[in-house]
């Protein structure tokens, strides 16, 4: 999503206004200045040595002067990590520091161990959404218990376990807070109760590893345990190799948890060798690929040509699975109406058909509505020594420039475990199709090549067949009212080790009888070609 800082001319104009008014804009007492600085430094985990602004300014001037005289100043600053009770107890930020040097070992994970199966309860609030068989096994073989807690504003967040290999990081949390929980449950909302916990935090979206944001937030799952605590699992894709003898992980939530404002910060240090054990990587590189030509991309006969070179930035596998990241850049266009449009140059990783040298297909996946170029990859055969990456290209079969054809499949076929071919080279097999308590759920198991996992593959044709929730909405502009109809909430979760997507359609008001009357589903079929001429082979080397 673009923001105002992406409009350079406007921002430079704003910058000029700021520079002009710096001397006259507002006032701050010296006490306020120092208070704000100390608060900032506390949040950064630093130990503010000098209280005055004046002293630090002079020091900074001296530093800058020396730098200019001697050349680049190279000094590593180690920001001290401090325990909450010692320094920040009186401030609003609360930190916890984990045990020294955590190693990845085989350890049970309460998130999985203590939970019933979704099949038994059919309720995302009572059990993890998916089975996660292979992923669970991999995680429990490669993680460490932490057991650190932070409490703020009546909400306690405990970091139960952490797991990291060269491809991904997983954290497991328990979150409790009676007042906060009650407030969530009392929200007047026609949606399912489990969804009210979505986004209430803590999110830890911007996890840092060795000070860098190289962890791309991916799958998450949550449920309430028997005591009413929220159990949360968050999976991250790593976009670079975690380096060093010690790997520092910072998880900072500075907005809210269970909807309550506050701050919950954790720092753990992992043993680098332990994290990288068993890892394999492919050499990054840039590979020439033919340009992609899109005739009639805007519906008005304009042709668009885009660079589709493969910029392989990161390809790695560890005991928990794999990751692939390619470089993709945004290109701003103007369509025939004069409106802004955007296209993407560089070959996206999900446009690669990947097979190892034993013939095993690898499947890519990413959580829905997540931005970022990295994808989960299922693991190659343990004996594999290389991967072949074959680019896939869309053909354009339609006059209006669209790339897909709409196809139909029946509910009976889905119930019987049909294949849904989204491309001629692959698609999904539907498993565990169930209608129960106003919910339609199923698993999408990949086969062949299918451009990664998405939840919106199958669209139920439920018009005129189901009851819906009506909501009165007011137009803010003219005060007029309209009735909006809401049918269902679509959601999904992914098992990264298997590439399987578990999908739910939670209907707000439809009965099971109404849902059983839905006889057809639609999906999009994309015509593609496999560009074997430009396939590349990448050797897998052990991480040293």
């Amino acid at each position, binding site marked *: 999503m673009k923001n*105002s800082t992406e409009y350079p001319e406007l921002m430079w104009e704003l910058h000029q206004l700021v520079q002009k008014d710096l001397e006259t804009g507002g006032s701050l007492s010296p006490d306020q200045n120092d208070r*704000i*600085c100390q608060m*900032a430094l506390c949040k950064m985990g630093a130990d503010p040595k000098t209280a005055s602004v004046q002293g*630090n300014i002079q020091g*900074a*001037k001296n*530093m800058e002067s020396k730098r200019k005289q001697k050349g680049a100043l190279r000094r590593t*600053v180690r920001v001290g990590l401090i325990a909450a009770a010692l320094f920040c107890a009186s401030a609003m930020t609360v930190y916890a520091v984990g045990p020294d040097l955590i190693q990845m070992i085989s350890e049970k994970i309460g998130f999985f161990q203590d939970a019933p199966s979704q099949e038994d309860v059919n309720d995302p609030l009572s059990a993890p959404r998916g089975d996660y068989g292979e992923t669970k096994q991999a995680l429990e073989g490669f993680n460490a218990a932490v057991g650190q807690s932070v409490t703020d504003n009546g909400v306690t967040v405990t970091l139960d376990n952490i797991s990291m290999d060269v491809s991904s990081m997983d954290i497991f949390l328990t979150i409790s807070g009676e007042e906060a929980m009650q407030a969530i449950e009392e929200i007047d909302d026609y949606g399912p109760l489990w969804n009210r916990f979505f986004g209430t935090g803590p999110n830890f979206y911007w996890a840092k590893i060795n000070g860098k944001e190289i962890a791309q937030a991916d799958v998450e799952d949550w449920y309430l345990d028997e005591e009413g605590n929220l159990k949360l699992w968050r999976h991250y894709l790593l976009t670079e190799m975690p380096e060093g003898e010690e790997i520092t992980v910072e998880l900072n939530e500075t907005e809210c948890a269970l909807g309550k404002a506050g701050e919950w910060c954790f720092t753990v240090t992992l043993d680098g060798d332990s994290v990288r054990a068993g890892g394999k990587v492919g050499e990054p590189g840039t590979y020439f690929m033919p340009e992609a030509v899109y005739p009639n991309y805007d519906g008005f006969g304009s042709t668009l040509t885009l660079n589709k070179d493969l910029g392989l930035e990161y390809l790695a596998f560890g005991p928990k699975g794999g990751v692939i990241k390619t470089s993709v850049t945004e290109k701003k266009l103007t369509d025939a109406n004069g409106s802004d449009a955007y296209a993407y140059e560089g070959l996206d990783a999900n446009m690669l058909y990947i097979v190892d040298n034993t013939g095993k297909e690898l499947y890519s996946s990413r959580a829905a509505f997540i931005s970022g170029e990295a994808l989960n990859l299922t693991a190659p055969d343990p004996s594999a020594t290389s991967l072949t990456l074959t680019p896939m290209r869309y053909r354009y079969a339609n006059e209006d420039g669209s790339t897909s054809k709409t196809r139909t499949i029946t509910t009976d076929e889905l119930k019987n475990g049909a294949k849904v071919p989204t491309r001629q080279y692959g698609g999904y097999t539907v498993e565990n199709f169930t209608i129960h308590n106003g919910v339609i759920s199923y698993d999408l198991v990949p086969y062949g090549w299918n451009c990664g996992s998405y939840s919106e593959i199958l669209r139920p044709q439920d018009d005129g067949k189901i009851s819906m929730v009506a909501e009165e909405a007011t137009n803010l502009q003219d005060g007029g009212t309209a009735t909006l109809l809401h049918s269902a909430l679509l959601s999904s979760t992914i098992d990264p080790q298997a590439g399987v997507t578990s999908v739910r359609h939670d209907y707000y008001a439809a009965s099971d009888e109404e849902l059983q009357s839905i006889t057809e589903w639609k999906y999009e079929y994309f015509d593609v070609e496999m560009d074997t001429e430009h396939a590349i082979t990448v050797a897998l080397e052990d991480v040293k």
Partner: protein
Amino acid sequence: MWEEAFSQQQIYRLLEKDPERGIYVLQSQYGKMIFRIVSRILPEYPEDAEEVAADVLVATWQQASLLSQSHKPLGAWLTVTARNRAIDRRRLLSRKQILPLNEEVDFLVETISSDGEDLIGALVAQMTQPDREIFLRRYYRLETAKEIGEAIGMRTHTVNVRLARGRKKLKDEYLKQMGKECRRYEKQHGVS
């Protein structure tokens, strides 16, 4: 104010090499501007305003390397960041329903939703002067009509009229664009 202001590259360098000093320099140079924006959105809560101001400094430290490489103008980035963080805090406090109504501030918060942020920016960028400067000062720097009038040599009443006309135009364009975005999304994703 210091006779020799630090350039933004010098500030980024300090934040990376000596974060503590960098924070103090950043505060000395931009602290008043940041606090003025934040306290205009959180006039009832000076403590929250100070904390949000501290958050802006921390965010700058976190982004120093990226900002340095991208050559984004620091003053503008700080203005937008301060405004957005203060708005987020105000929304949190509003959900707790402990803030009294403040029409002027709440209008700004309502107008600048996360969905519309990029569109509002694009639409303001297309305005001609002096309307563009008026909107930059009003929506990004939170200046009053009187302050804007004094800065650009225009009567307060005239500034208010231009703001009202511009707001209507922004809203119309915003609703039109968001409708288009929804239809484009639906077409691309086959969602009905």
